[in-house]
């Protein structure tokens, strides 16, 4: 099976000195949910933004290749990337407030997102309302008339997911999709992603620091540490038989995985950190 998204030996640096991503490999297949986990500063967000050509200012790709449907994205022209970003790849961000224009209603914006698609405005509006219903927004016809600030954080994230799915992308990238949400809302968004997978055939890439989200949602996981992918595997293997010492240490740190009440919580010491980079990937 050829991969929908295939990243090979990708290296990205910031302003010529810091290597944010070093020699990363990553694949996403159709119908698959892939997790990309790491701590802050691990390079996971930089890697994700490189896929859509939205690298922060100062960052540039030094080497390697990103291929989408067997076509290189990195070597192509800017315009090709923009088309790709709109129709083939959709993104959901951590803060759904920033994803919407504050002065337009949600419904109008969902129509706008379909600008490259055929159909009359009224059909697009109907499609938008149907999509709002599908992501579990109650009274979708009414809600389409609200402005972003009139919705709660959880509602906005649902609407952002609706916006992403409207263009029927083959790859959905979600960058920390539940981080800004409360626990009960997080559970509902995780549930929503799972439900959507039943009829959404594309690939999903979930970038997160939250191990619980990955365990709940993903089929495969990539673990990043200081710019490198240190381990990759099926979610069950990573959580139950981690091979890289960093993965083991990271899992051990999660208080949700400690069954007994611990007086002191496990941490990753600097001495341990020094050994991680010597251990080779996979």
């Amino acid at each position, binding site marked *: 099976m050829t991969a929908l998204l295939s990243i090979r030996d990708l290296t990205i640096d910031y302003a010529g000195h810091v290597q944010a991503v070093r020699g990363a490999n990553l694949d996403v297949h159709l119908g698959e949910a892939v997790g990309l986990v790491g701590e802050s500063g691990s390079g996971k967000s930089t890697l994700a933004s490189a896929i859509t050509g939205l690298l922060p200012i100062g960052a540039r790709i030094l080497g390697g290749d990103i291929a989408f449907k067997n076509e290189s994205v990195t070597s192509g022209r800017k315009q090709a990337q923009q088309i790709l970003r709109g129709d083939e790849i959709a993104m959901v961000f951590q803060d759904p407030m920033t994803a919407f224009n504050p002065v337009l209603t949600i419904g109008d914006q969902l129509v706008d997102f379909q600008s490259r698609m055929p159909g009359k405005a009224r059909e697009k509006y109907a499609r938008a309302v149907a999509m709002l219903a599908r992501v579990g927004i109650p009274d979708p016809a009414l809600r389409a008339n609200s402005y972003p600030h009139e919705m709660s954080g959880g509602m906005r994230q649902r609407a952002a997911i609706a916006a992403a799915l409207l263009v029927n992308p083959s790859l959905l990238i979600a960058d920390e999709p539940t981080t800004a949400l409360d*626990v009960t809302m997080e559970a*509902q968004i995780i549930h929503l992603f799972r439900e959507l997978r039943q009829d959404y055939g594309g690939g999903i890439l979930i970038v997160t620091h939250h*191990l619980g989200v990955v365990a709940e949602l993903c089929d495969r996981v990539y673990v990043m540490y200081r710019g490198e992918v240190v381990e990759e595997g099926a979610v069950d293997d990573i959580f139950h038989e981690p091979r890289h010492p960093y993965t083991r240490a990271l899992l051990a740190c999660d208080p949700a995985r400690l069954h007994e009440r611990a007086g002191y919580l496990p941490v990753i010491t600097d001495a341990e950190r020094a050994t991680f980079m010597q251990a080779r990937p996979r």
Partner: protein
Amino acid sequence: MTPLIEAEGLAVNFRAPGGFLGLGHHRLAILEDVSVSVRPGKTLGLVGESGSGKTTLARALLGLVSRARGEIRFEGRPVDSFRRLRRKTAMMFQDPIASLSPRLAIGSAITEPFLIHGVAMTSRRAAAEELLALVGLPKEFASRYPHELSGGQARRAGVARALALRPALVIADEPTAGLDVSIQGEILNLMTRLKAELSLSYIIVTHNLAMIRHVSDRIAIMYLGRIVEEGPTAEVFAGARHPYTASLIASEPIPDPRRRRQSLAITGEVPSILRRPSGCEFHTRCPHAQARCRSEAPSLTKSTGGRSVRCHFPLNERFPPKLSDFGDKETRQL
């Protein structure tokens, strides 16, 4: 033993402008009928989602937010002026960098309590270095500025400032917010170690259930400005009596792909504080809600085992809950 700090029937209102030309205003109840207490040397966890009033409660306990009703007692004596309390209490705020004065070097910031209360120190420099050593920061940090610190380092500086005058009570608002799991542990372990060394009591305000489970002796769960359940941490996690507590615990993602949840523990959203539901405020989302819950507000009632619950039909008390009601909650409670 007398509690170190105790609040009874605490209520806090905010004034929301409104009325003709904004001249009038109506009262918005942020906290209603809140009673909590912390015994010396213990840690109380205040748990709730955003809008639950947990931060307001923490601030009201230290008089940073004025209360409409209720009494606060410190070491058994009613508090009338918070000024005298300031030396014995300290607060750590949510955003570690923003809670440090931006134009003050860390060394000056953490020794400020000495100046404020006129407490003698050998020299400001020595006091700063001693405090930095206490929280495991190198002494060079004395001359750094808040924006030059990482989240974890600023957090440590916050701990140092809070402990400068060796208080009896430290209230920490979301001490792990924005920190990676590996750094979270460092801060919590530091707090745990200092608690023993300096015989402190903590109130930890958080939404992080996985964390609070390990660091608190008792927890109080808040929903829309009220405490809905209170009790020893281990027992509350082992068998929640309020349906909200149960669904909160069941909502935490489980970092184990073999125990994925299939059903949702809770649907809907926290109602707006502007439109409080009638009766029991949780009835709009409660899987067990009955007619009585919609009309009659339950009060926080003492239950067995030193626990309290604000529910007409508590779980795990007289009748065991139906497994199907909470998805696979039971499998979580190892």
